[in-house]
């Protein structure tokens, strides 16, 4: 019996590998193609081969992309805005989750429902009215025009995750803290928050992933480069270098790089976080 089982797995293993490799090639080959073309010169692209072996590796494409794509400025903006959004989402969601889940008041259920409603509202339907609101308040072209909607639309899922984790924390802990004369704020930030670490990580990853690549709101609410985020490196570039394909490939590879590198380094944590967020959300 056991021997038969082993024999079977010996035959099936290669089939498993073949299936998985085919899927991997489909998922990753376009990116390899991108990388390959970004190192060639534009003239070399018109071949019928799948990949090019560049005569001379054109690092110059990347230099152009780096300088003319405003790469550093946009990267800094992306990191700053997304970082702030993550911190705010975590803070606001923990506070709201505690109030709705632990504190005793009549409207707790209603308020929680209201805050979760955001999950069902399509972001892009708010583009038109929000543009109006932000221009009336003079918020267009400021960081707030991105920060406010990023936090607001990440909040419902964060709140959902926080409440489901909070319900697993025993109330006795808080009771002891109250006996010792702890106030609510200290209970939240010194006792509850440290225990929510896994869900905080999940919320941080989901918020970052959702907003890092966002550009629809950015391109609607921003017009000057001051606060533009990373996707703009590409959007602006394609107009400017419309005939220089190689440089366009380089700017695409460069823009994708930070997220891919961070993902490869942290891939275990990120997959765990995404899986947790998706299953609970």
């Amino acid at each position: 019996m056991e021997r038969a089982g082993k024999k079977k797995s010996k035959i099936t293993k290669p089939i498993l590998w073949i299936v998985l490799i085919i899927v991997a090639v489909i998922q990753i080959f376009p990116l390899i193609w991108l990388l390959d073309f970004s190192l060639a010169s534009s003239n070399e692209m018109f071949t019928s081969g799948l990949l090019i072996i560049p005569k001379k590796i054109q690092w110059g494409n990347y230099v152009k992309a780096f300088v003319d794509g405003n790469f550093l400025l946009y990267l800094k903006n992306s990191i700053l805005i997304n970082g702030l959004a993550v911190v705010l989402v975590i803070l606001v969601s923990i506070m709201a989750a505690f109030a709705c889940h632990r504190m005793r008041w009549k409207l707790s259920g209603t308020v929680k429902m209201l805050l979760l409603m955001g999950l069902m509202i399509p972001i892009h339907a708010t583009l038109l009215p929000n543009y109006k609101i932000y221009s009336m308040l003079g918020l267009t072209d400021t960081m707030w025009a991105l920060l406010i909607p990023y936090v607001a639309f990440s909040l419902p899922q964060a709140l959902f995750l926080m409440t489901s984790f909070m319900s697993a924390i025993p109330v006795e802990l808080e009771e002891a803290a109250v006996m010792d004369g702890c106030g609510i704020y200290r209970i939240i930030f010194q006792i509850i928050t440290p225990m929510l670490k896994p869900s905080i990580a999940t919320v941080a990853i989901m918020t970052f992933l959702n907003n890092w690549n966002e550009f629809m709101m950015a391109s609607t609410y921003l017009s000057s480069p001051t606060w533009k985020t990373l996707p703009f490196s590409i959007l602006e570039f394609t107009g400017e270098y419309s005939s220089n394909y190689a440089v366009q490939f380089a700017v695409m590879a460069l823009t994708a790089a930070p997220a891919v590198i961070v993902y490869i380094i942290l891939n275990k944590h990120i997959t765990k976080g995404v899986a947790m967020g998706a299953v609970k959300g």
Partner: protein
Amino acid sequence: MKKLYSNKLVILSLVLPGLVLFLFAILAPICLSVYYGFTDYSGMGSYNMIGLENYKTLLQDPTLRIALRNSLYLALGFIFIQHPLALITAAVLDKLGGRGENFFRCVYFIPNVISVAVIAYLWKFIYNPDFGLLNNIIKAFGGKGDINWFSTDTAIWAVLIVLIWHGFGWGMLIYYTGIKNIDPVLYEAAAIDGANQTTTFLKITLPLMKPVIQVNVTMAVISALKQMETVYLLTNGGPGNSTQFTANYLYQQAFKAFKYGYGNAIGVIFIIICLLATVILNKIFEDREETKLKKLEKARAKGAAV
């Protein structure tokens, strides 16, 4: 304790930031959309209240129908192409074990961390008729390889392929997590009974994955409705309106055609459609779960009676 936990002022201070964000970034814009939906506002200058005129036009608008049809195509593509492939890949991956498993899991998810902007422009090049990857692949297999992928007839399929490709890793990961949560004892039992891998997949993995599949299907339909960014960059709804999606259409109407009022009316309808879709899908799946539970209970009651 009780006093401390029902202090109104403290509660208010805790929920206020969240509520203000909700009011300011979600509720206020929706109300404003409803208001502008009743006007003929162009985006500049003065405007008139025109009642339900926008909504009447909307009912006759062929582009909205195309947009909704495209969402339906996309949802079907997700459900019948992307998800089965993702589920099977997840099941195969689960069997691999060791370093290979982690490696493939990591690789499959990489397209998901890349910006839609990069993905859209990359695929524009892949579809490029002169040096695009796709035509070159067709040439390598002996075909002619001079297909214009963004012609009126094929453009929607070109868009669907990109979206199905881009979201694959996400779906795979969720199915993979679901499969990992299945009790391995069940597989051992199946192996002892001499079940082969296909039967194990069909009789154990698939039924136990039902809740995960249901969640995934709901999310697929909703994201098919909400699709905008990829289409906006890839084709911007063209050629003609053949690849139009609702969100892209309302954006175009407001900012390109200068029918801000009409765009907002589309927005209102768009929100209603998304809400309805969410509620209906949840109802369908909930009801099934409930009837199943009832059946189980009945069976148990019968068993107890016997």
